[in-house]
């Protein structure tokens, strides 16, 4: 459906969830088959609602949109502290899945961001710097057809 069938994404994120002891994992991918490139959450693990399916992510908005646009990882250790609760509606996936601590990385293909991988916890201060490093190390340089290439050094966007 999305033109990435050859790799078992569901299995990959299920495994990742276990390794990182995460509460939620989401994988947003660009739909290549559509004429029009649509970024949506395609694979999830540990979700508590199905509302993620409704959302079409636009570049530059929300967690996935930000990572998609900038091509840089994004980490929030304590969502309550970092994101003003009045601004929270701009991060629907965080609200729907009640995430308190999360990190997201871009997935590249031919130097373009084609997907975003989000790892989240429902308790604050879980996504520490070490955890984020572990997350990136676990993914390694390749995730299915994608490579986890960072254009610059490991700079996390500090909001």
């Amino acid at each position, binding site marked *: 459906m999305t033109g990435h069938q050859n790799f078992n994404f569901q299995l990959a994120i299920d495994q990742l969830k276990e390794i990182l002891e995460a509460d939620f994992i989401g994988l947003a991918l660009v739909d290549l088959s559509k004429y*029009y*490139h649509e970024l949506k959450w395609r694979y999830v693990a540990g979700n508590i609602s199905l*509302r*993620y399916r*409704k*959302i*079409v992510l*636009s*570049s*530059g*908005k929300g967690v996935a949109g930000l990572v998609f646009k900038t091509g840089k990882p994004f980490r929030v250790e304590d969502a309550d502290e970092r994101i003003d609760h*009045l601004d929270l*509606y*701009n991060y*629907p996936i965080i609200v*729907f899945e009640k995430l308190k601590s999360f990190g997201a990385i871009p997935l590249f293909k*031919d130097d*373009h961001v084609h997907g975003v991988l989000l790892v989240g916890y429902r308790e604050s201060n879980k996504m520490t710097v070490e955890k984020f490093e572990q997350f990136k190390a676990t993914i390694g340089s390749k995730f299915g057809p994608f490579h986890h290439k960072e254009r610059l050094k490991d700079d996390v966007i500090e909001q």
Partner: protein
Amino acid sequence: MMLSSSDNVPELLQKLYNRTTEAMFFFGAEGQILSMNEAAKQIIEPEIYQKMLQGEADSICFTCRGYTSEDEQMTCVSCFMANPMQTLTSFQLYLETKDLGVLPYSATYQVIDEQQQISVLMLRNLTRQTQTQEVLNQKLRVKQVIQAQENERKRISRELHDSVAQEMLSSLVDLRVLKYMNVDEEVLEKLRQTEGSLMRLLDDIRYLSVELRPAVLDDFGLEAAFRTHIKGLEKNFGLIVNFYSELKSNRYEGEIETVVYRIGQEAILNAMKYAEVEEVFLRLKEVQGNLCLEVMDEGIGFNVNDFTPEGTGLGLFGMRERVELVGGNLTITSSAHEGTKVQVEIPVKKERATSENHNS
């Protein structure tokens, strides 16, 4: 009615002097105070009152903070006391009052005995009138700001839609033509990527244009505009809006449609931000010549009469102002177990809206 005999007048005057809410001061030739009534005593700081009683010249200056001239709010330039032989009615005077700070008064200064140069100053409290005037001015200003904002948005939105997006589209077409020319696979792949980013950019521009002001509101009316907006909300925020409309494709005056659309938008946004709900109900209907909009949620509610705005508090204020702009009514009811309901009723003159009255 019998004319009161002249013996009665002093008694009545004495009563008036003691009971009136207007402060009265009698001045002698030097500006010394001969007498002050109870009302005057009430507004003056006790210490200054005692000082004024001692009959110093120009002792009114202890409490007077100037009068309003055409040039200044409070000034002493050509003070009314400087020329004691003239009579001045209804000018605005500021006094330093007990407890309440500097307040405006409507003053009358009059000479009542030219031989002995006795004059009287009477003051009427103007606070309420000044406040009313201020509120009125503020409302007018807000209305002008709202209208200016709407016009400006319309202009930018059109500019984006008609010229920026169009240009972008023609470049996109040019780019697509390239794909059918004799180019190798590597170039083709790069072309596809560029096409993809351009498409996304075009989408962003269109989204921005609609966000600023939906052209569909001008072209197809409220129902269509709300449907588009709701689709956007679901896509961007995963919010479900249950929309019931009995309007069909009825059209109203441009101004009314804008007001209803903006209030609907604001109310839904409020529900999404504060009510902690996943679902909002939106209803549009026309009842007895009134266009009705209802936005409801089953969220946590708030105390309508006494709440501390979590945001700027301008949203609610703006909604009210917008409704008043078209002579409508806004009712907000909210409680912790029933959620919040925003109701708007606007009297409408049935009219076929054309894009003309939208552009005015």
